């Protein structure tokens, strides 16, 4: 009996102790063996300097060490400030930004996509940069653009990626197309001709996966903007207008003519680039940033870059779709002043030139000129196209922009795969969008 009751007591103590030790393990917190260390607890390093966190998806996209090198430059100029890079691919960065905004744990400086800004600003997760600029006495005239919500700036595009048309020279020649199409009807004819060459070749490629619906922005709306059209009117949705209707009907024509590579409905941007790189696709609309990637992965591929074809007979200025790597400062940051210094550094003429050179992007500072414009004919062409057209991306700064793209995507898929009339689809999109504004 005595043995048993002692055993019972031992058991209760052991149980409680192990429960406590589990909790103690928790209380140990971030003090991980080799982990983050003390630095990110209070935003100050052991030597008293400020540690800024910069979360972005850029580092994996840039040559190894490039972004770190730029940050080292900043640390040299600003003794007492250290920068810690928090890098993840685009989709994970997006998810972590949403989660971080909800739990007030955003990095001090956050890489932003134009599509996220409105939501984050409304949520008061990112801070108003207009005030920061004023406090720092910053002259914003050199900034190419600023993304505003309710009149205040929340994001500054650091570099911009243009989306021109890429054409596979050999494939087009094989299909009997002498030069890249400049109008929609030429494009349709060329796409059909390429698809007829067989071997699994396709004229055009269109990624419409719903989990990453940016194909709507890059590959569909770009047709609208290239012909000077718009999906908005006075800041409100207007997708039932003729310019959107004609672009969607055009995509439907391409689809019905089997001129689009199979798998469209669940395809991702990566697949698009991959198939073009492997020489299976005649034409695609894609980010200029991919030139290097395509050359690296398939040095034999001969391709050209030109402006996105416009509606037949259109002579006005061409809208040039683009995407940005934007930047903002977190509301929960304890070092907003230092954070602004980092933003300012990234936007300064030389650093911005350097970053746009390594990223193959166009600078966010109007005075910066990236190296590749001088050294590379293809980029020179693109730079000319960029300068001739007007930058166009109407999704930037819209509320739940990604969801707007997704509801457009759903209806477009209905039209393509289920033959739902274009008018009905666009009317449904209009209704869905109107609820969000």
């Amino acid at each position: 009996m005595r043995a048993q009751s002692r055993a019972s007591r031992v058991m209760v103590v052991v149980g409680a102790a192990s429960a406590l030790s589990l909790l103690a393990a928790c209380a140990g917190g971030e003090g991980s063996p080799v982990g983050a260390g003390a630095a990110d607890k209070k935003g100050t390093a052991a030597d008293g300097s400020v540690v800024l966190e910069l979360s972005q998806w850029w580092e994996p996209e840039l040559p190894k060490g490039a972004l770190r090198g730029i940050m080292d430059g900043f640390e040299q100029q600003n003794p007492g400030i250290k920068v810690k890079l928090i890098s993840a691919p685009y989709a994970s960065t997006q998810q972590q930004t949403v989660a971080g905004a909800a739990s007030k744990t955003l990095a001090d400086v956050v890489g932003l996509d134009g599509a996220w800004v409105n939501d984050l600003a409304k949520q008061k997760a990112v801070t108003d940069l207009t005030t920061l600029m004023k406090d720092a006495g910053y002259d914003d005239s050199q900034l190419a653009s600023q993304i505003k919500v309710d009149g205040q700036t929340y994001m500054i595009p650091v570099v911009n990626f243009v989306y021109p048309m890429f054409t596979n020279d050999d494939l087009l020649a094989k299909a009997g197309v002498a030069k890249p199409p400049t109008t929609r009807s030429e494009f349709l004819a060329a796409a059909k001709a390429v698809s007829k060459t067989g071997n699994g070749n396709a004229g055009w490629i269109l990624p419409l996966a719903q989990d990453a619906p940016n194909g709507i922005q890059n590959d569909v709306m770009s047709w609208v903007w290239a012909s000077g059209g718009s999906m908005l009117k006075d800041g409100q949705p207007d997708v039932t207008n003729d310019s959107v209707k004609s672009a969607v009907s055009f995509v439907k024509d391409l689809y019905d003519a089997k001129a689009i590579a199979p798998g469209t409905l669940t395809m991702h941007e990566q697949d698009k680039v991959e198939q073009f790189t492997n020489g299976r696709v005649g034409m695609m609309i894609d980010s200029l940033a991919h030139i290097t990637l395509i050359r690296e992965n398939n040095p034999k591929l001969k391709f050209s870059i030109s402006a996105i074809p416009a509606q037949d007979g259109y002579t006005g200025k061409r809208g040039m779709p683009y995407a940005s790597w934007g930047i903002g400062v977190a509301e929960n940051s304890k070092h907003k002043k230092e954070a602004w210094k980092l933003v300012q550094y990234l936007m300064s003429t030389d650093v911005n030139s350097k970053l746009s050179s390594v990223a193959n992007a166009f600078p966010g500072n109007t005075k910066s000129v990236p190296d590749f414009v001088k050294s590379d004919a293809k980029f020179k062409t693109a730079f000319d196209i960029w300068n001739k057209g007007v930058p166009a991306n109407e999704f930037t700064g819209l509320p739940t922009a990604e969801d707007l793209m997704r509801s457009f995507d759903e209806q477009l898929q209905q039209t393509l795969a289920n033959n739902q009339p274009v008018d009905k689809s666009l009317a449904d999109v209009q209704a869905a969008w109107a609820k969000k504004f």
Partner: protein
Amino acid sequence: MTATQIPTRAAPTQEAPRRRPLPLRRLVPYGYLSPVIVLMIVLMIVPVVVVIRYSFLDNVIMTPTSSLVGWHNYVTVLGDPLFRTAARNTAVFTSVSVAVHLLLGLAFAMLLNTTLLGQRTKTVFRTIFVMPWLLTVAIIAILWRLLLDPNGVVNYGLQGVGLIDTPVAWFSDLNLALPAVTFVNIWAGYPFFMVSLLAGLQGISADLYEAAAVDGASWLQRFVHVTLPSLRPIIVSMALLDLIWTSQQFPLIWMTTGGGPLDRTEMLSTYTYKLAFSKYEFAWASASAVVLLVLAMVLAVFYVRYQRARD
């Protein structure tokens, strides 16, 4: 202490625990369970309670203040036609997956249990058969996207043997997407059944088969009257567990079709995820999550009941 106590002490010692258990003794099992209980309360019960709370609020997370809206979120979610489509897809995906998991698992387990082949051959095949199970979902999704690509090796093979004329985009064909993701899920999940059933088969006494053989039972009769009844407990447990797990499958769907084309592979899990991370309607997402939770709990209750009935 005193001599009189010694004899009286011996008798009650044996009786005491039954008659009048000491409070401390009653706490022993809780002592053993305390680490589990603490962990589960902190890391599971608390978040579940938070989700349930969110499901009755308005505009959670996205705005600093939110108000109680009663069942409004549930009405919204349950009234959404997409929710019903997702429920239907989940039902098809789950039931077909579980059924085929079971059939394949049983077939492979019986092949591996046969006495016709050498031990070494069986070990080699057992290892090959179990391999899909050893891969993480991220790998499975990427691998099958590679294989089922319109330019991928599966299309090449099928064209080679003349089953199809032109490459098929399996994951984005309206009528093939759901079968395709179900197929991938079957590929990834049957080994779990196979391993369990193999263990069960090895546990069936040879006497039972011998007795059946003496009675002149055919292979089929032995299977129906000896094998299946012996495996019944495993089959039911595994099927219930698999139902629970498959109905929640998220990463595989998300990384292959993302719920598309149109709504053809939208599941309750992807639907909920989109509500939260794409529409930022965390309150709706919570309501949808709670519905999913209740469904899963019903299955869990069946599972526990079944386990208890057998004990």
